[in-house]
């Protein structure tokens, strides 16, 4: 999902940066407020960030014959709410952009938008919907993390198709092309991310049942996966 440095025209790069900026402010506020109210959650925030660090460093092979990586932001979105994952995603993306030349500073806004904004918000929305339909917790966690991951890659495909419409087929033809590269590659990886998130939530509900009660999303209803 990393759009490479310089690979978005200046207007798009600036637009996505402006679009992502307010979410960063909101996210930082949301995290600092939460830690002030419940300092004991610091450890779990660390776990959520660490999960995203690990998963976004693992490039996994996929059925399309290319490699991509999960994002790991779904877990944190379920624990701390989607806004809290924006600063976490920013740290991951900055590390990769500055040290690894993976992604970039001009595309940071666009990448942040797909990975740390669309992904977590879709994950939280899917989770809420699943719980409202009274689906089992494990199923909701899986669907949330999996679809959040896919949504990130779909967003990248849309961003690129918007910036580079096909000369013949326009936006749609481009979207099909970039969607084939990103979204289809991502399907098995998104399933893996969903499964791993369920695994961590299983461990959390066994070891951190007290802390989970205070969580905005996972704390609702019984906590058993």
């Amino acid at each position: 999902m990393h759009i490479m440095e310089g690979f978005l025209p200046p207007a798009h790069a600036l637009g996505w940066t402006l679009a992502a900026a307010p979410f960063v402010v909101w996210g930082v506020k949301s995290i600092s407020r939460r830690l002030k109210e419940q300092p004991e959650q610091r450890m779990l925030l660390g776990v959520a960030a660490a999960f995203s660090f690990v998963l976004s460093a693992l490039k996994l092979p996929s059925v399309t014959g290319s490699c991509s990586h999960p994002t790991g932001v779904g877990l944190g979105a379920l624990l701390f709410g989607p806004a809290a994952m924006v600063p976490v995603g920013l740290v991951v993306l900055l590390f990769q952009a500055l040290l690894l030349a993976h992604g970039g500073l001009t595309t940071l806004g666009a990448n942040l938008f797909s990975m740390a904004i669309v992904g977590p918000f879709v994950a939280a929305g899917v989770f809420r919907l699943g719980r409202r339909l009274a689906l089992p917790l494990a199923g909701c966690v899986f669907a949330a993390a999996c679809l959040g991951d896919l949504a990130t890659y779909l967003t990248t495909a849309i961003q690129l198709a918007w910036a580079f419409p096909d000369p013949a087929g326009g936006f749609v033809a481009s979207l099909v092309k970039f969607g084939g590269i990103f979204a289809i590659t991502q399907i098995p990886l998104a399933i893996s991310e969903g499964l791993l998130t369920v695994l961590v939530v299983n461990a959390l509900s066994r070891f951190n049942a007290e802390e989970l009660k205070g969580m905005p999303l996972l704390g609702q209803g019984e906590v058993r996966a």
Partner: protein
Amino acid sequence: MKRQNWLILAAVVLLTVLPLWLVPKPDKGPDGQAGEAFGGADSKAQQAIGKIAPDYKPWFSPLMEPASNEIASLLFALQAAVGAGVIGYWLGASVTRDRLRRKNELPQVVERDKRAD
């Protein structure tokens, strides 16, 4: 619960390993060398941009690039290691806390058992 966790882990491993078998080897290029399999989706997208807009020139380049692929994999490994370290610390601390809690509860359980006898 335990069984479910193992099944999940097995499924993740299968999902990761199966593509390595399932995907056919890429066709040989004009130079007779086999094309690169399992390249990054990011660089595939970069190539696709090159096809759609051949005139597009990236207008900014990374401030710093890893000196080689080895250095890049070092940094990726570092990123994963930092994350895994934090998760490992949390799991270790949690398991120990859980065990101590159980140990403190145990005497009462034993007493209750004796009474039941």
